[in-house]
């Protein structure tokens, strides 16, 4: 299916005329979508574990109400997987007015929903603000864990594996996996990571795999047990060398990233990890971490991905949901989101595609705990690698 669409697009682009006609048609379509969206209520299921994010979503609630007459309700959830299960149950029961209209999602959860045909769309490329998205410079906006989005989810923000800790206690933050092992050796019992299958922990292990694998391109293809057995030994050698210096000698691990973060705040660990590059700054602003906190990434790059919003196939308010998704892509909303003093979540938009006025919205400036030097974002391996990594980790270190 994607292939034929690509051919179609190539043909229409070549003709030159069609794009203009298409955008005209799309604009007319969009006007009617916005019209129908007025007065609708969108139940937006989004993770609520961070105050800055909740505050931002509150702002969006007010904006879409005043601009588009859409009532956005933030349904607080602890884990997107619960939405996947709920929508699956609803679709199975034949419920056409689902409980969820918009969901904050990515990775495995998206793959599950896409595979079970639980998503509405494709709708993302038709959003007027989609034209600003940096699809070339940020390929993960079209490929979620190497799974093509097919327009079934609209990009919202960028995520990248980031480490953080107290700068007063860390003279030289480790800038690679090898340096991390040395750091752990120098500070026994003060480093740890969440145990897989927590996805932060899995990502850390993935990072180890990426950094020890011979050929990175292998990870783009679908994983098999033989392939995994072939490429994983260096990773396990690294982890075997790392674990004895970890917290509790690598025999116990925190269950979640939240626990890891708390252990850093308590002083039990020297560093923690996150997917939100600005999380450390958020925590400093929220007075959960001291002002001396620093955040850093590996100089050769760390795993990065995009997080999205998607619309379940049985959503009731699909028009209003699309309006909200579109608003989330607007330069104004993206700029406010990227503001390091609030959420600080990196934008999915391409600066080159914005006008001067729009660019000026994106204020810059470092705050305590923000990243000083950006590093390349390494794309995620294909989703099929995850269960193999998790199972192998459990076998090696689970008991």
């Amino acid at each position, binding site marked *: 299916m994607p292939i034929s669409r690509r051919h179609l697009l190539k043909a229409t682009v070549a003709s030159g005329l069609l794009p203009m006609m298409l955008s005209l048609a799309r604009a007319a379509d969009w006007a009617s979508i916005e019209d129908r969206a007025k007065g609708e209520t969108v*139940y937006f*299921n989004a*993770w*609520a*574990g*961070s*105050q800055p994010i*909740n505050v931002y979503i509150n702002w969006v609630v007010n904006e879409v109400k005043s601009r588009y007459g859409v009532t956005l*309700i933030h*349904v*607080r*959830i*602890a*884990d*997107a*997987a*619960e939405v*996947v*299960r*709920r929508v699956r*149950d609803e679709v199975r*029961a034949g*419920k056409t007015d689902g*409980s*969820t209209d918009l969901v904050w999602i990515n990775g*495995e*959860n998206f793959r*599950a*929903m896409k595979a*079970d045909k639980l998503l509405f769309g494709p709708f993302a490329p038709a959003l007027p603000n989609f034209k600003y998205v940096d699809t070339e410079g940020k390929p993960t906006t079209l490929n979620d864990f190497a799974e093509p989005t097919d327009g079934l989810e609209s990009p919202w923000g960028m995520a990248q594996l980031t480490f953080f800790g107290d700068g007063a206690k860390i003279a030289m933050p480790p800038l690679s996996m090898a340096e991390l092992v040395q750091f752990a050796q120098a500070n026994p*019992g*003060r480093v740890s990571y969440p*145990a897989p*299958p927590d996805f932060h922990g899995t990502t850390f292990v993935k990072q180890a795999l990426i950094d020890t694998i011979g050929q990175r391109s292998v990870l783009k293809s679908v994983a098999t047990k033989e392939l995994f057995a072939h490429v994983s030994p260096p990773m396990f050698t690294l982890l075997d060398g790392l674990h004895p210096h970890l917290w*509790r000698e690598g*025999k*116990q*691990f*925190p*269950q*979640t990233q*939240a*626990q890891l*973060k*708390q*252990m850093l*705040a*308590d*002083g*039990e660990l020297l560093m923690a990890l996150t997917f939100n590059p600005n999380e450390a700054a958020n925590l400093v602003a*929220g*007075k*959960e971490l*001291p002002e001396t906190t620093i955040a850093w990434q590996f100089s050769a790059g760390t795993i990065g991905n995009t997080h999205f919003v998607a619309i379940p196939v049985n959503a009731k308010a699909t028009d209003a949901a699309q309006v909200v998704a579109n608003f989330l892509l607007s330069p104004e909303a993206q700029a406010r989101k990227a503001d390091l003093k609030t959420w600080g979540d990196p934008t999915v938009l391409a600066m080159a595609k914005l006008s001067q006025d729009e660019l000026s919205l994106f204020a810059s400036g470092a705050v305590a705990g923000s990243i000083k030097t950006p590093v390349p974002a390494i794309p995620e391996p294909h989703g099929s690698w995850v269960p193999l990594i998790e*199972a192998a980790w*459990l*076998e090696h*270190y*689970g*008991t």
Partner: protein
Amino acid sequence: MARTLRHVNHRLKALGGLLPLGAMWILPLSAGLAAALTSTFDAAVWAALFTHPQIFPALALSLTTGSASMILSTLLAFLIVAGLHRVTALQTWMGGFLAVPHLAFAVGFSFLIMPSGLLARVVGVFGDWAAPPQWITTQDPLGLSLIVALVLKEVPFVTWLTVGLMARRDVSQMLEAQSRIGHSLGHGAASLWLRVFIPQILPRMRWPLLIVWIYGASVVDMAIAIGPTQPPPLAVIIWSDLNSADQAINARGSVGAVFLTLVLAALAVLFAGLTRLLKPTFRSFLVSGPSVEAVPVRSARGLLMAIAAVYLIVIMLLAIMSFGSLWPFPDLWPSQFQVMAWEHLWDAPEPLFNSLTLALGSMITALFLAILWFEEVSARFDRYLLAAAVVALALPSLLIAEGQYLVFLKSGLNGTWWGVYLAHLSPVFAYVFIVLSGPYRAFDPRYRSVSLGLNTNNWRFWTAIKLPIMKPALTAAAAVGIGVSIAQFESTQLIASGRLSTLNLEAVTLSSGGNRQLLAMYSLLLMIIPFCAFLAASRTERRLQ
């Protein structure tokens, strides 16, 4: 003719006891179970379960933590009641402790004992420590800190049960008289407890103790907060599987839940058989003759003081944590304070209201259904309903809620208050019924026949004679029911589907990012309703004594 009519009338009455129960509890529960257990007949899923690398060590961990905590807490509870059973304030205290939600207690207690926790900091003052010691307290591989936390949570519950059984006017009078006789036969207080009181009370506590055991073996939130991680107890693995978005892993989770329940059931039957085998040994102990040891009152008092101290410290810690945001080692006091968490209180009225109405609604219904059953149905059938209640509590609430969700979808109940109320009713009724069954069936039937002879009708008998005597047990069961409803998370989350929120829902979702300040504040809020309920319950009991 008259006899047939009476027979029919009798059957109708029994049906009257069964119908509402069937509609409101059995039906939603079985529907939930059936829907959720559809994958249990797939052999491939069972194979997937048994190839999980952690499954057997995790099972062993669940069983040891559950068993150790149940046995210890029962022994300690008996010690406390034996040493202090004249102290009426005991009940109020226990009620207060019971009101602290399990997760809140685990969070506070782990902050007390963890390597970077308060105890370490106090000790660190003398050792001038700059970094937390490498103690192995929380998340220890044997699960000892989990056992300690469970014992601290369960001792008040078992004590509450015991005192509830013994505080009834008729029971306490009989025990007093037996005490006098026992003394005159040369038996000291300890011997009376071991040979006379416990043998009479313990059989009435079998089912609640079974629940305590099952709870210890299947607890998830406390295990995550304070228990070992590699491997964690089996219940944590099951819960994590059930929460996954992957259908195959979900199936493995539900099969895992069935497996754990079957293992627990098998062990329970085994244990029952073992006690039957050991009966002659027990009985010969009972009559081996008088012994004059006194009850170690000082130890009992010390134990109670220690438990009370831990609870007070935990509550105090939660209060400080709710205001303090940054509290690194080795500070004895938070370095940063902010009111931020408490500002959430303004958001709280609606969830608080929902929590309250759901708790009251499900508790009253559960009491009504239980009393209806006890009054209209013969005690012979109790064990079937008790077994059903135990199963309802042994299986993870997430599993049952998933099944109920599927059923409610078809009837449009999900997303409504009524749907959540029905979902809450499953565990609330189970607890209320189990806690009430001992005291209710122990009601002396001689009261009934005496009053029949005096020509009082059913209703008068119930309000004038039975209700006052049953009040302590009823209020105890009510308080427990309220606590259970307040603590519901998965069932609320799933059935409410984002249309309504409760206090616990807010607490868990907002603190899923690890913000301890928020979690501490919500923990304190979550304590208020059950605390008031237990306070009211003990007031009633005190007035009767």
